[in-house]
Protein backbone atom coordinates (compact mmCIF):
# COMPACT_ATOMS: atom_id res chain seq x y z
CA UNK A 1 0.00 0.00 0.00
CA UNK A 2 1.30 3.37 -0.77
CA UNK A 3 2.52 5.60 1.99
CA UNK A 4 -0.17 7.64 3.66
CA UNK A 5 -2.93 5.20 2.75
CA UNK A 6 -3.99 5.11 6.39
CA UNK A 7 -3.79 8.74 7.35
CA UNK A 8 -5.11 8.58 10.89
CA UNK A 9 -2.28 9.54 13.13
CA UNK A 10 -3.96 8.29 16.26
CA UNK A 11 -2.80 4.80 15.50
CA UNK A 12 0.29 3.89 17.47
CA UNK A 13 1.98 1.03 19.20
CA UNK A 14 0.80 2.51 22.45
CA UNK A 15 -2.85 2.59 21.42
CA UNK A 16 -2.68 -0.96 20.13
CA UNK A 17 -0.99 -2.06 23.32
CA UNK A 18 -3.57 -0.51 25.62
CA UNK A 19 -6.43 -1.94 23.60
CA UNK A 20 -4.65 -5.28 23.45
CA UNK A 21 -4.19 -5.32 27.21
CA UNK A 22 -7.86 -4.57 27.84
CA UNK A 23 -8.90 -7.16 25.31
CA UNK A 24 -6.54 -9.71 26.83
CA UNK A 25 -8.11 -9.20 30.24
CA UNK A 26 -11.62 -9.42 28.81
CA UNK A 27 -10.86 -12.59 26.88
CA UNK A 28 -9.18 -14.07 29.95
CA UNK A 29 -12.32 -13.48 32.00
CA UNK A 30 -14.46 -14.93 29.23
CA UNK A 31 -12.21 -17.97 28.96
CA UNK A 32 -12.26 -18.79 32.66
CA UNK A 33 -16.01 -18.24 33.09
CA UNK A 34 -16.73 -20.04 29.85
CA UNK A 35 -14.59 -23.01 30.79
CA UNK A 36 -16.41 -23.17 34.10
CA UNK A 37 -19.77 -23.21 32.35
CA UNK A 38 -18.58 -26.05 30.14
CA UNK A 39 -17.30 -28.07 33.09
CA UNK A 40 -20.55 -27.62 35.00
CA UNK A 41 -22.48 -29.04 32.06
CA UNK A 42 -19.99 -31.78 31.19
CA UNK A 43 -18.28 -32.58 34.47
CA UNK A 44 -15.23 -34.80 34.20
CA UNK A 45 -14.60 -37.16 37.10
CA UNK A 46 -12.30 -34.78 38.95
CA UNK A 47 -14.66 -31.80 38.77
CA UNK A 48 -16.98 -31.05 41.66
CA UNK A 49 -19.50 -28.27 41.45
CA UNK A 50 -21.09 -27.16 44.72
CA UNK A 51 -24.76 -26.54 45.21
CA UNK A 52 -24.11 -23.33 47.14
CA UNK A 53 -23.94 -20.39 46.83
CA UNK A 54 -27.27 -20.54 45.06
CA UNK A 55 -26.36 -17.79 42.62
CA UNK A 56 -22.77 -18.66 41.77
CA UNK A 57 -23.44 -19.91 38.24
CA UNK A 58 -25.76 -16.99 37.65
CA UNK A 59 -22.87 -14.70 38.50
CA UNK A 60 -20.18 -16.46 36.47
CA UNK A 61 -22.35 -16.83 33.38
CA UNK A 62 -23.66 -13.28 33.70
CA UNK A 63 -20.05 -12.10 33.88
CA UNK A 64 -19.17 -14.21 30.85
CA UNK A 65 -21.87 -12.69 28.66
CA UNK A 66 -21.41 -9.14 29.94
CA UNK A 67 -17.65 -9.27 29.32
CA UNK A 68 -18.18 -10.78 25.89
CA UNK A 69 -20.61 -8.06 24.86
CA UNK A 70 -18.33 -5.34 26.22
CA UNK A 71 -15.59 -6.80 24.02
CA UNK A 72 -17.47 -5.71 20.90
CA UNK A 73 -16.15 -2.13 20.89
CA UNK A 74 -12.79 -3.26 22.30
CA UNK A 75 -12.19 -5.75 19.53
CA UNK A 76 -13.47 -3.34 16.91
CA UNK A 77 -11.10 -0.61 18.05
CA UNK A 78 -8.14 -2.97 18.32
CA UNK A 79 -8.64 -4.33 14.81
CA UNK A 80 -9.00 -0.78 13.47
CA UNK A 81 -5.81 0.19 15.22
CA UNK A 82 -3.72 -2.59 13.66
CA UNK A 83 -5.48 -2.76 10.29
CA UNK A 84 -2.59 -1.23 8.30
CA UNK A 85 -0.46 -4.21 9.27
CA UNK A 86 -2.67 -6.41 7.14
CA UNK A 87 -1.01 -4.79 4.13
CA UNK A 88 2.61 -5.28 5.12
CA UNK A 89 4.95 -5.77 2.21
CA UNK A 90 6.52 -8.21 1.59
CA UNK A 91 3.79 -10.44 3.03
CA UNK A 92 6.32 -12.88 4.43
CA UNK A 93 9.94 -12.02 4.99
CA UNK A 94 10.79 -15.48 6.31
CA UNK A 95 9.20 -18.72 7.36
CA UNK A 96 9.02 -17.49 10.95
CA UNK A 97 7.38 -14.27 9.83
CA UNK A 98 4.88 -16.20 7.75
CA UNK A 99 4.04 -18.44 10.71
CA UNK A 100 3.54 -15.41 12.87
CA UNK A 101 1.21 -13.84 10.32
CA UNK A 102 -0.79 -17.05 10.09
CA UNK A 103 -1.14 -17.13 13.87
CA UNK A 104 -2.41 -13.55 13.82
CA UNK A 105 -4.95 -14.48 11.17
CA UNK A 106 -6.11 -17.35 13.38
CA UNK A 107 -6.32 -15.00 16.37
CA UNK A 108 -8.39 -12.43 14.51
CA UNK A 109 -10.72 -15.00 12.95
CA UNK A 110 -11.19 -16.86 16.24
CA UNK A 111 -11.75 -13.67 18.24
CA UNK A 112 -14.37 -12.51 15.76
CA UNK A 113 -15.91 -16.00 15.78
CA UNK A 114 -16.33 -15.90 19.55
CA UNK A 115 -17.61 -12.36 19.85
CA UNK A 116 -19.90 -12.39 16.81
CA UNK A 117 -21.11 -15.91 17.58
CA UNK A 118 -21.76 -14.89 21.15
CA UNK A 119 -23.77 -11.84 20.08
CA UNK A 120 -25.82 -14.03 17.72
CA UNK A 121 -26.44 -16.55 20.49
CA UNK A 122 -27.55 -13.90 22.98
CA UNK A 123 -29.87 -12.50 20.33
CA UNK A 124 -31.00 -16.04 19.45
CA UNK A 125 -30.32 -15.68 15.74
CA UNK A 126 -28.85 -19.02 14.75
CA UNK A 127 -29.36 -18.97 10.99
CA UNK A 128 -25.89 -17.56 10.17
CA UNK A 129 -24.21 -20.30 12.21
CA UNK A 130 -24.15 -23.68 10.41
CA UNK A 131 -23.07 -25.60 13.53
CA UNK A 132 -24.10 -26.38 17.08
CA UNK A 133 -23.19 -23.16 18.84
CA UNK A 134 -22.25 -24.51 22.27
CA UNK A 135 -19.65 -27.04 21.17
CA UNK A 136 -18.11 -24.78 18.52
CA UNK A 137 -17.93 -21.84 20.92
CA UNK A 138 -16.12 -24.05 23.42
CA UNK A 139 -13.42 -25.32 21.06
CA UNK A 140 -12.81 -22.01 19.34
CA UNK A 141 -12.45 -20.58 22.85
CA UNK A 142 -9.38 -22.78 23.28
CA UNK A 143 -8.18 -21.80 19.83
CA UNK A 144 -8.41 -18.10 20.60
CA UNK A 145 -6.57 -18.44 23.90
CA UNK A 146 -3.79 -20.42 22.23
CA UNK A 147 -3.44 -17.85 19.47
CA UNK A 148 -3.49 -15.10 22.09
CA UNK A 149 -0.63 -16.72 24.01
CA UNK A 150 1.41 -16.92 20.81
CA UNK A 151 0.62 -13.29 20.04
CA UNK A 152 1.66 -12.12 23.50
CA UNK A 153 4.87 -14.12 23.25
CA UNK A 154 5.72 -12.53 19.94
CA UNK A 155 4.75 -8.99 20.85
CA UNK A 156 5.97 -8.85 24.43
CA UNK A 157 8.94 -6.55 23.89
CA UNK A 158 6.90 -4.20 21.71
CA UNK A 159 4.15 -3.94 24.27
CA UNK A 160 6.59 -3.46 27.13
CA UNK A 161 8.34 -0.66 25.32
CA UNK A 162 5.13 0.98 24.14
CA UNK A 163 3.57 1.03 27.57
CA UNK A 164 6.70 1.86 29.51
CA UNK A 165 7.66 5.21 28.15
CA UNK A 166 6.48 8.20 30.11
CA UNK A 167 3.41 9.91 28.73
CA UNK A 168 3.84 13.53 27.70
CA UNK A 169 1.95 15.79 30.03
CA UNK A 170 0.13 18.07 27.66
CA UNK A 171 -0.22 18.91 23.98
CA UNK A 172 2.18 21.77 24.54
CA UNK A 173 4.88 19.18 24.74
CA UNK A 174 5.00 19.26 21.02
CA UNK A 175 6.85 22.51 21.32
CA UNK A 176 9.72 20.74 22.95
CA UNK A 177 10.12 18.31 20.08
CA UNK A 178 10.20 20.63 17.17
CA UNK A 179 13.84 21.16 17.76
CA UNK A 180 14.51 17.46 17.41
CA UNK A 181 12.79 16.10 14.37
CA UNK A 182 12.96 12.39 13.87
CA UNK A 183 15.49 11.46 11.27
CA UNK A 184 14.34 9.60 8.25
CA UNK A 185 16.58 6.68 8.86
CA UNK A 186 15.83 6.17 12.51
CA UNK A 187 14.84 2.57 13.19
CA UNK A 188 11.42 1.64 14.43
CA UNK A 189 12.67 1.15 17.97
CA UNK A 190 12.69 4.88 18.24
CA UNK A 191 9.16 4.76 16.98
CA UNK A 192 8.30 2.46 19.80
CA UNK A 193 10.06 4.64 22.27
CA UNK A 194 8.46 7.73 20.80
CA UNK A 195 5.19 5.95 20.77
CA UNK A 196 2.99 8.06 18.63
CA UNK A 197 4.14 7.80 15.08
CA UNK A 198 2.18 5.52 12.84
CA UNK A 199 4.13 2.37 12.43
CA UNK A 200 4.25 -0.06 9.63
CA UNK A 201 3.78 1.20 6.19
CA UNK A 202 3.71 4.94 6.33
CA UNK A 203 6.91 6.59 5.26
CA UNK A 204 8.30 8.17 8.36
CA UNK A 205 9.50 11.37 6.78
CA UNK A 206 6.05 12.30 5.46
CA UNK A 207 4.33 11.85 8.75
CA UNK A 208 6.96 13.08 11.09
CA UNK A 209 8.41 16.20 9.61
CA UNK A 210 6.77 19.23 11.06
CA UNK A 211 3.99 17.21 12.65
CA UNK A 212 3.35 16.35 16.21
CA UNK A 213 5.49 13.42 17.14
CA UNK A 214 5.19 13.23 20.85
CA UNK A 215 2.13 14.11 22.76
CA UNK A 216 -1.30 12.70 22.35
CA UNK A 217 -3.33 15.25 20.53
CA UNK A 218 -3.37 15.13 16.76
CA UNK A 219 -5.91 17.11 14.80
CA UNK A 220 -8.42 17.15 17.63
CA UNK A 221 -8.59 13.39 18.13
CA UNK A 222 -6.26 11.82 20.63
CA UNK A 223 -5.39 8.34 21.76
CA UNK A 224 -7.10 9.10 25.05
CA UNK A 225 -10.14 10.17 23.06
CA UNK A 226 -10.26 6.83 21.30
CA UNK A 227 -9.72 4.89 24.52
CA UNK A 228 -12.34 7.00 26.26
CA UNK A 229 -14.78 6.50 23.41
CA UNK A 230 -14.26 2.74 23.53
CA UNK A 231 -14.76 2.72 27.31
CA UNK A 232 -18.00 4.67 26.99
CA UNK A 233 -19.21 2.31 24.28
CA UNK A 234 -18.39 -0.72 26.42
CA UNK A 235 -20.20 0.87 29.35
CA UNK A 236 -23.29 1.62 27.27
CA UNK A 237 -23.42 -1.91 25.86
CA UNK A 238 -23.16 -3.29 29.38
CA UNK A 239 -25.78 -1.01 30.90
CA UNK A 240 -28.30 -1.81 28.18
CA UNK A 241 -27.85 -5.57 28.39
CA UNK A 242 -26.70 -6.70 31.79
CA UNK A 243 -30.14 -6.01 33.17
CA UNK A 244 -31.07 -9.37 31.68
CA UNK A 245 -29.39 -10.86 34.72
CA UNK A 246 -28.96 -8.01 37.16
CA UNK A 247 -32.49 -7.19 38.24
CA UNK A 248 -32.10 -3.53 39.23
CA UNK A 249 -30.86 -2.69 35.74
CA UNK A 250 -33.60 -4.57 33.91
CA UNK A 251 -35.61 -1.51 32.90
CA UNK A 252 -32.61 -0.47 30.82
CA UNK A 253 -32.46 -3.64 28.79
CA UNK A 254 -32.97 -2.87 25.14
CA UNK A 255 -30.23 -4.82 23.41
CA UNK A 256 -31.08 -8.35 24.34
CA UNK A 257 -34.25 -10.26 23.75
CA UNK A 258 -35.11 -10.95 27.31
CA UNK A 259 -35.93 -9.10 30.47
CA UNK A 260 -36.06 -11.08 33.70
CA UNK A 261 -39.84 -10.64 34.13
CA UNK A 262 -40.75 -11.35 30.54
CA UNK A 263 -42.73 -14.55 30.17
CA UNK A 264 -45.55 -16.73 31.56
CA UNK A 265 -45.83 -16.52 35.34
CA UNK A 266 -43.31 -13.72 35.26
CA UNK A 267 -40.37 -15.87 34.20
CA UNK A 268 -38.78 -16.14 30.75
CA UNK A 269 -38.91 -19.30 28.67
CA UNK A 270 -36.37 -20.58 26.17
CA UNK A 271 -37.86 -23.84 25.02
CA UNK A 272 -41.63 -24.05 24.87
CA UNK A 273 -43.72 -27.18 25.29
CA UNK A 274 -44.75 -27.10 21.65
CA UNK A 275 -41.15 -26.88 20.44
CA UNK A 276 -40.37 -29.86 22.67
CA UNK A 277 -43.43 -31.77 21.48
CA UNK A 278 -44.64 -32.70 24.93
CA UNK A 279 -48.02 -31.00 25.08
CA UNK A 280 -50.15 -34.13 24.88
CA UNK A 281 -47.97 -36.23 27.15
CA UNK A 282 -47.76 -33.52 29.78
CA UNK A 283 -51.45 -32.74 29.82
CA UNK A 284 -52.68 -36.31 29.51
CA UNK A 285 -54.45 -37.98 32.45
CA UNK A 286 -52.09 -40.95 32.29
CA UNK A 287 -49.12 -38.85 33.39
CA UNK A 288 -46.91 -40.65 35.88
CA UNK A 289 -43.57 -39.65 37.29
CA UNK A 290 -41.61 -42.89 37.55
CA UNK A 291 -39.05 -43.02 40.33
CA UNK A 292 -36.70 -45.97 39.96
CA UNK A 293 -33.96 -47.36 42.18
CA UNK A 294 -32.12 -50.67 41.88
CA UNK A 295 -34.83 -53.24 42.61
CA UNK A 296 -37.69 -50.78 43.12
CA UNK A 297 -39.85 -48.64 40.92
CA UNK A 298 -42.88 -46.52 41.74
CA UNK A 299 -45.16 -44.40 39.61
CA UNK A 300 -46.58 -41.19 41.03
CA UNK A 301 -49.48 -39.35 39.47
CA UNK A 302 -49.98 -35.66 40.04
CA UNK A 303 -52.29 -36.20 43.01
CA UNK A 304 -49.77 -38.48 44.65
CA UNK A 305 -47.03 -35.91 44.10
CA UNK A 306 -49.16 -33.17 45.66
CA UNK A 307 -49.92 -35.45 48.61
CA UNK A 308 -46.25 -35.63 49.56
CA UNK A 309 -44.74 -32.98 51.83
CA UNK A 310 -44.36 -29.75 49.84
CA UNK A 311 -41.62 -27.18 50.29
CA UNK A 312 -41.20 -23.73 48.80
CA UNK A 313 -37.86 -22.27 47.72
CA UNK A 314 -36.71 -19.18 45.92
CA UNK A 315 -34.22 -20.07 43.18
CA UNK A 316 -33.01 -18.46 39.96
CA UNK A 317 -33.11 -19.89 36.47
CA UNK A 318 -29.66 -18.96 35.13
CA UNK A 319 -29.44 -19.42 31.42
CA UNK A 320 -26.22 -19.99 29.55
CA UNK A 321 -27.12 -16.97 27.40
CA UNK A 322 -26.48 -14.77 30.38
CA UNK A 323 -30.00 -13.96 31.49
CA UNK A 324 -31.42 -15.05 34.80
CA UNK A 325 -34.60 -14.65 36.75
CA UNK A 326 -35.73 -15.73 40.19
CA UNK A 327 -38.87 -17.71 40.89
CA UNK A 328 -40.74 -19.00 43.90
CA UNK A 329 -40.96 -22.77 43.38
CA UNK A 330 -43.03 -25.30 45.35
CA UNK A 331 -42.81 -29.03 45.17
CA UNK A 332 -41.33 -32.20 46.57
CA UNK A 333 -37.72 -32.30 47.72
CA UNK A 334 -35.67 -34.53 45.48
CA UNK A 335 -34.07 -36.08 48.53
CA UNK A 336 -37.53 -37.07 49.81
CA UNK A 337 -38.26 -38.90 46.56
CA UNK A 338 -34.92 -40.66 46.81
CA UNK A 339 -35.79 -41.77 50.36
CA UNK A 340 -39.21 -42.94 49.14
CA UNK A 341 -37.55 -45.62 47.02
CA UNK A 342 -35.40 -46.75 49.88
CA UNK A 343 -32.08 -45.06 49.05
CA UNK A 344 -30.06 -42.87 51.40
CA UNK A 345 -30.40 -39.35 49.97
CA UNK A 346 -27.04 -38.29 51.42
CA UNK A 347 -25.26 -40.85 49.28
CA UNK A 348 -27.12 -40.82 46.00
CA UNK A 349 -26.91 -39.42 42.51
CA UNK A 350 -29.89 -39.10 40.24
CA UNK A 351 -30.61 -38.96 36.53
CA UNK A 352 -33.77 -37.14 35.46
CA UNK A 353 -35.45 -37.65 32.12
CA UNK A 354 -37.92 -35.47 30.32
CA UNK A 355 -41.06 -36.47 28.44
CA UNK A 356 -39.33 -34.80 25.51
CA UNK A 357 -38.51 -37.71 23.23
CA UNK A 358 -35.40 -36.41 21.55
CA UNK A 359 -33.14 -33.46 22.17
CA UNK A 360 -29.77 -32.69 23.58
CA UNK A 361 -31.00 -31.72 26.98
CA UNK A 362 -33.73 -34.26 27.60
CA UNK A 363 -31.83 -35.81 30.45
CA UNK A 364 -29.54 -34.46 33.09
CA UNK A 365 -27.49 -35.90 35.87
CA UNK A 366 -27.94 -34.54 39.37
CA UNK A 367 -24.69 -34.93 41.27
CA UNK A 368 -24.63 -35.93 44.93
CA UNK A 369 -24.15 -32.37 46.18
CA UNK A 370 -27.34 -31.28 44.51
CA UNK A 371 -29.28 -34.45 45.26
CA UNK A 372 -28.80 -34.12 49.00
CA UNK A 373 -29.39 -30.34 49.05
CA UNK A 374 -32.82 -29.63 50.58
CA UNK A 375 -33.27 -26.75 48.12
CA UNK A 376 -33.38 -29.10 45.14
CA UNK A 377 -37.01 -29.66 44.24
CA UNK A 378 -39.18 -31.51 41.81
CA UNK A 379 -41.27 -28.40 41.35
CA UNK A 380 -45.01 -28.53 40.77
CA UNK A 381 -45.86 -24.86 41.28
CA UNK A 382 -44.37 -21.53 40.38
CA UNK A 383 -45.38 -18.42 42.28
CA UNK A 384 -48.20 -20.32 43.98
CA UNK A 385 -49.82 -21.47 40.73
CA UNK A 386 -49.41 -24.79 38.97
CA UNK A 387 -46.44 -24.71 36.62
CA UNK A 388 -47.21 -23.24 33.25
CA UNK A 389 -46.90 -25.77 30.46
CA UNK A 390 -43.94 -23.88 29.02
CA UNK A 391 -42.23 -23.91 32.39
CA UNK A 392 -42.32 -27.68 32.58
CA UNK A 393 -45.84 -28.70 33.73
CA UNK A 394 -46.48 -31.07 35.40
CA UNK A 395 -43.07 -31.29 37.08
CA UNK A 396 -39.62 -29.94 36.55
CA UNK A 397 -36.29 -30.05 38.31
CA UNK A 398 -35.09 -26.87 40.00
CA UNK A 399 -31.78 -26.93 41.83
CA UNK A 400 -29.49 -24.24 43.25
CA UNK A 401 -26.42 -23.11 41.34
CA UNK A 402 -27.19 -24.95 38.13
CA UNK A 403 -27.40 -23.75 34.50
CA UNK A 404 -30.86 -23.44 33.04
CA UNK A 405 -30.38 -26.18 30.45
CA UNK A 406 -29.88 -28.65 33.25
CA UNK A 407 -33.10 -27.75 35.08
CA UNK A 408 -34.99 -30.41 33.16
CA UNK A 409 -38.64 -29.77 32.37
CA UNK A 410 -41.61 -32.11 31.84
CA UNK A 411 -40.09 -34.82 33.97
CA UNK A 412 -41.10 -38.37 33.16
CA UNK A 413 -38.58 -40.50 34.97
CA UNK A 414 -36.13 -40.23 37.83
CA UNK A 415 -33.46 -42.89 38.17
CA UNK A 416 -31.66 -43.13 41.51
CA UNK A 417 -28.18 -44.50 41.93
CA UNK A 418 -26.67 -45.23 45.27
CA UNK A 419 -23.01 -44.32 45.73
CA UNK A 420 -20.67 -46.69 47.50
Amino acid sequence: MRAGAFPSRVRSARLSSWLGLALGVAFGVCFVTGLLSHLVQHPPGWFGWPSRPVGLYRFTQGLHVATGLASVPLLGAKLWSVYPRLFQWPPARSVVHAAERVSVAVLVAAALFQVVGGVLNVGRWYAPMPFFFTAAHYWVGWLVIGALLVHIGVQLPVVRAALARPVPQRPGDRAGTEGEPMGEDEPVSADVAGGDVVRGDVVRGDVVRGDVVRGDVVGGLSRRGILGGVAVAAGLVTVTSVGQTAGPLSPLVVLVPRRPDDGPQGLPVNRTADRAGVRDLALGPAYRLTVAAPGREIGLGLDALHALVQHTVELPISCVEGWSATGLWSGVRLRDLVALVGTDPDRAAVEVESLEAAGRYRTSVVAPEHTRDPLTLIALRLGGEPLHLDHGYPARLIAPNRPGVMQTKWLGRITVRELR
Partner: protein
Amino acid sequence: MRSQRHEDPGTGGAVRARAVLVAAGVLVMGFAVVGSLTDPDVAVGGVLLFLAGVLIVHDVLWMAVVLAVGAVLARFVPARYRTVVTAAVISAAALAVVALPLMVTP
Protein backbone atom coordinates in the same frame (compact mmCIF):
# COMPACT_ATOMS: atom_id res chain seq x y z
CA MET B 1 11.60 4.10 3.05
CA ARG B 2 10.60 0.89 4.64
CA SER B 3 10.94 0.80 8.42
CA GLN B 4 13.08 -2.06 9.54
CA ARG B 5 11.86 -4.17 12.37
CA HIS B 6 14.36 -3.54 15.06
CA GLU B 7 13.35 -5.12 18.31
CA ASP B 8 15.44 -5.78 21.29
CA PRO B 9 14.44 -9.31 22.29
CA GLY B 10 15.33 -8.55 25.87
CA THR B 11 17.33 -10.37 28.45
CA GLY B 12 17.65 -14.15 28.60
CA GLY B 13 14.73 -14.35 31.00
CA ALA B 14 12.48 -12.41 28.69
CA VAL B 15 13.46 -14.57 25.74
CA ARG B 16 12.63 -17.68 27.72
CA ALA B 17 9.30 -16.24 28.81
CA ARG B 18 8.43 -15.47 25.21
CA ALA B 19 9.43 -18.92 24.07
CA VAL B 20 7.28 -20.49 26.78
CA LEU B 21 4.30 -18.36 25.79
CA VAL B 22 4.63 -19.23 22.12
CA ALA B 23 5.12 -22.93 22.84
CA ALA B 24 2.16 -23.01 25.22
CA GLY B 25 0.04 -21.18 22.70
CA VAL B 26 0.89 -23.63 19.95
CA LEU B 27 0.06 -26.57 22.20
CA VAL B 28 -3.27 -25.07 23.20
CA MET B 29 -4.14 -24.39 19.56
CA GLY B 30 -3.27 -27.99 18.77
CA PHE B 31 -5.55 -29.12 21.58
CA ALA B 32 -8.35 -27.02 20.13
CA VAL B 33 -7.91 -28.48 16.65
CA VAL B 34 -7.73 -32.09 17.84
CA GLY B 35 -10.61 -31.62 20.23
CA SER B 36 -12.92 -30.08 17.67
CA LEU B 37 -12.11 -32.78 15.12
CA THR B 38 -12.90 -35.55 17.60
CA ASP B 39 -16.03 -33.99 19.10
CA PRO B 40 -19.09 -35.41 17.34
CA ASP B 41 -21.07 -32.28 18.18
CA VAL B 42 -18.78 -30.08 16.10
CA ALA B 43 -19.59 -29.49 12.44
CA VAL B 44 -16.03 -28.72 11.36
CA GLY B 45 -17.00 -27.53 7.91
CA GLY B 46 -19.50 -25.08 9.31
CA VAL B 47 -17.00 -23.79 11.84
CA LEU B 48 -14.32 -23.24 9.20
CA LEU B 49 -16.83 -21.50 6.98
CA PHE B 50 -17.85 -19.15 9.76
CA LEU B 51 -14.23 -18.48 10.74
CA ALA B 52 -13.36 -17.51 7.18
CA GLY B 53 -16.62 -15.64 6.83
CA VAL B 54 -16.23 -13.35 9.81
CA LEU B 55 -12.61 -12.67 8.90
CA ILE B 56 -13.43 -11.67 5.33
CA VAL B 57 -16.57 -9.71 6.19
CA HIS B 58 -14.67 -7.79 8.83
CA ASP B 59 -11.49 -7.10 6.88
CA VAL B 60 -13.21 -6.24 3.62
CA LEU B 61 -16.75 -5.00 4.22
CA TRP B 62 -16.73 -3.73 7.78
CA MET B 63 -13.37 -1.96 7.60
CA ALA B 64 -14.34 -0.30 4.32
CA VAL B 65 -17.36 1.20 6.03
CA VAL B 66 -15.38 2.18 9.11
CA LEU B 67 -12.61 3.84 7.11
CA ALA B 68 -15.15 5.67 4.98
CA VAL B 69 -16.95 6.97 8.06
CA GLY B 70 -13.61 7.97 9.55
CA ALA B 71 -12.69 9.89 6.44
CA VAL B 72 -16.01 11.71 6.50
CA LEU B 73 -15.54 12.60 10.15
CA ALA B 74 -12.01 13.84 9.54
CA ARG B 75 -13.18 15.94 6.62
CA PHE B 76 -16.36 17.47 8.01
CA VAL B 77 -16.17 17.53 11.79
CA PRO B 78 -14.32 20.52 13.26
CA ALA B 79 -11.30 19.54 15.30
CA ARG B 80 -12.74 20.59 18.61
CA TYR B 81 -15.76 18.30 18.29
CA ARG B 82 -13.93 15.36 16.80
CA THR B 83 -13.34 13.47 20.05
CA VAL B 84 -16.96 13.63 21.17
CA VAL B 85 -18.33 12.80 17.74
CA THR B 86 -15.92 9.90 17.34
CA ALA B 87 -16.89 8.58 20.76
CA ALA B 88 -20.56 8.81 19.82
CA VAL B 89 -19.97 6.98 16.55
CA ILE B 90 -18.02 4.21 18.30
CA SER B 91 -20.88 3.79 20.77
CA ALA B 92 -23.50 3.78 18.05
CA ALA B 93 -21.58 1.15 16.10
CA ALA B 94 -21.12 -1.08 19.14
CA LEU B 95 -24.79 -0.85 20.12
CA ALA B 96 -25.86 -1.55 16.53
CA VAL B 97 -23.69 -4.67 16.36
CA VAL B 98 -25.08 -6.06 19.62
CA ALA B 99 -28.64 -5.21 18.64
CA LEU B 100 -28.35 -6.63 15.11
CA PRO B 101 -29.82 -10.07 15.89
CA LEU B 102 -32.79 -8.41 17.57
CA MET B 103 -33.52 -6.39 14.49
CA VAL B 104 -33.30 -9.41 12.23
CA THR B 105 -35.19 -12.07 14.15
CA PRO B 106 -38.98 -11.89 14.39
